[in-house]
């Protein structure tokens, strides 16, 4: 159902080279990320997994431009990033919607900042609100929505201003299992629809394998690339067919083992 066309050379390539991130100074100094080089192709769906404290969220916020890079570079389509930019959009785990704005106004925010005329704003916003199945909730405030609905608003508002790259920080982490699965499928559909690069942070191996084309597994203290697993799944079937297939189990095992080694090392230390 969500098989992508073989489109090559898409925009939205993220190139990370020799990235290092250090927090604090002197005795407080901690290295969050060290010597990390990795490339995400334009239009690719990549998940990043790793034990907690491996710096995966730090990595995401560095790509977003929210945090300063200590050394190394991050480039989007060969252009080194300098702070946040509208070519990248983040979906936060805690949604981070503007509570004083309605669903509709949250989704139009980025378009307002871009100076898009009102009528155009409305039609674009409506399109994305429909895409995440929130029609009828346009005039609600975030406090009136459930967690799953808030996150769909979070996704819609980020899609609405059309960044090339979606950066998702455990976006479904706070939701229960059935809702997670529904939103995962919706995200795959959207990804197939709108053609964006997605960097997806999660600690859930199954989620990573189910969603992404490649899984980057990170070590901790300091965080860096451990292994990268290509997930070459036939995703033409239903969720049940995919999840119960042998190849899915194999990929899951591979990623899990690699991740588990990492956690084990930690426990021995």
């Amino acid at each position: 159902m969500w098989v992508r066309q073989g489109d090559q050379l898409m925009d939205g390539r993220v190139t990370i080279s020799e990235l290092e991130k250090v927090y604090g100074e002197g005795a407080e100094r901690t290295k969050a990320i060290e010597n990390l080089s990795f490339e995400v192709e334009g239009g690719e769906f990549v998940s990043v997994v790793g034990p907690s404290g491996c710096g995966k969220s730090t990595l995401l916020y560095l790509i977003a431009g929210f945090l300063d890079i200590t050394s190394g570079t991050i480039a989007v389509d060969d252009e080194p990033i300098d702070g946040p930019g509208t070519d990248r959009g983040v979906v936060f785990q805690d949604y981070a919607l503007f509570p004083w704005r309605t669903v509709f106004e949250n989704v139009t925010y980025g378009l307002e900042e871009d100076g898009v005329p009102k009528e155009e704003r409305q039609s674009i916003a409506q399109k994305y609100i429909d895409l995440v199945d929130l029609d009828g909730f346009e005039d609600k405030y975030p406090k009136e929505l459930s967690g799953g609905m808030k996150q769909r608003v979070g996704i819609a508002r980020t899609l609405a201003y059309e960044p090339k790259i979606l950066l998702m920080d455990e976006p479904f982490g706070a939701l229960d299992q059935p809702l997670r699965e529904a939103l995962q499928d919706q995200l795959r559909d959207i990804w197939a629809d709108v053609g964006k690069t997605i960097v997806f942070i999660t600690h859930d191996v199954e989620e990573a394998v189910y969603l992404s084309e490649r899984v980057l597994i990170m070590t901790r203290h300091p965080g860096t690339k451990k292994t990268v697993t290509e997930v070459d799944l036939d995703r033409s079937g239903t969720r049940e067919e995919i999840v119960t297939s042998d190849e899915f189990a194999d990929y899951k095992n591979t990623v899990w083992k690699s991740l588990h080694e990492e956690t084990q090392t930690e426990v021995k230390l």
Partner: protein
Amino acid sequence: MDVTADAEGGFDLSRVIDIGKSIYSLVILLVLWEVVGQLGLIHYYFLPPLSAIIARFIELTLNGEMLYNAYLTLYRALVGLAIASVLGVIVGVLSARNDLVDWFFDPIIKIGYPIPIISLIPVFMLWFGIGDISKIIMVAVGTFWPVAINARDSTRQVQTNLIWSAQMMGTSDRRLLWRVVMPAALPGILTGFQIAMPLSLIITFVFEMVAGGGGLGALEIAGVRSFQSEQVYAAIIAIMFIGIGLDRLLRFTRSRLLHWT
């Protein structure tokens, strides 16, 4: 509370009874007051019967004296509060957003806030006299602190994620203040106003009692000095109603502005 009955303008008896129930202890006290006064259990000078106070209140209202003094008190309190609100919000928000401003104002706020401000009334009389200006400046100085501190703290507590969200959607640093920081800090800023409002009345009232120049505080003190204790209580009732009225107004404004919380 049943708002729909209000909106339709219909008379709802159960609602009247509800209100009656919620204040019945107050009604008992008021009746007791009247009885004690009428029986002469407490000397008239200390506590006149409620009816005598109400009669005096009406008399003062009809001859314009009450309204004029209430106007003076309100004018001084609200102008002072308005000045403090503007300056307090500016200083508070800038302190939270700018290290240099914070470096300058933080010690001043730390020292200034705990000073019992009415202890400075004699100093203000010395510097600025006993007229309106002196009272307004005193109110502004006294109410500046809660406004500034609440504005600063609520601005500091604006979630980083909200600021990041705005930045990723293209909001420049200069627009950030209006687009995100101020709306996100608004609940705390309004709380500052709500704390400062009764304070503005207290400062004005006390200054009027000490320095005269009209106003409800002066009216009350004049009542004591001329042995007219009904006037003392009438002035108290007036300032009480003003306090309650302004509090209601601020609460209403708050619920309107913050309907999204």
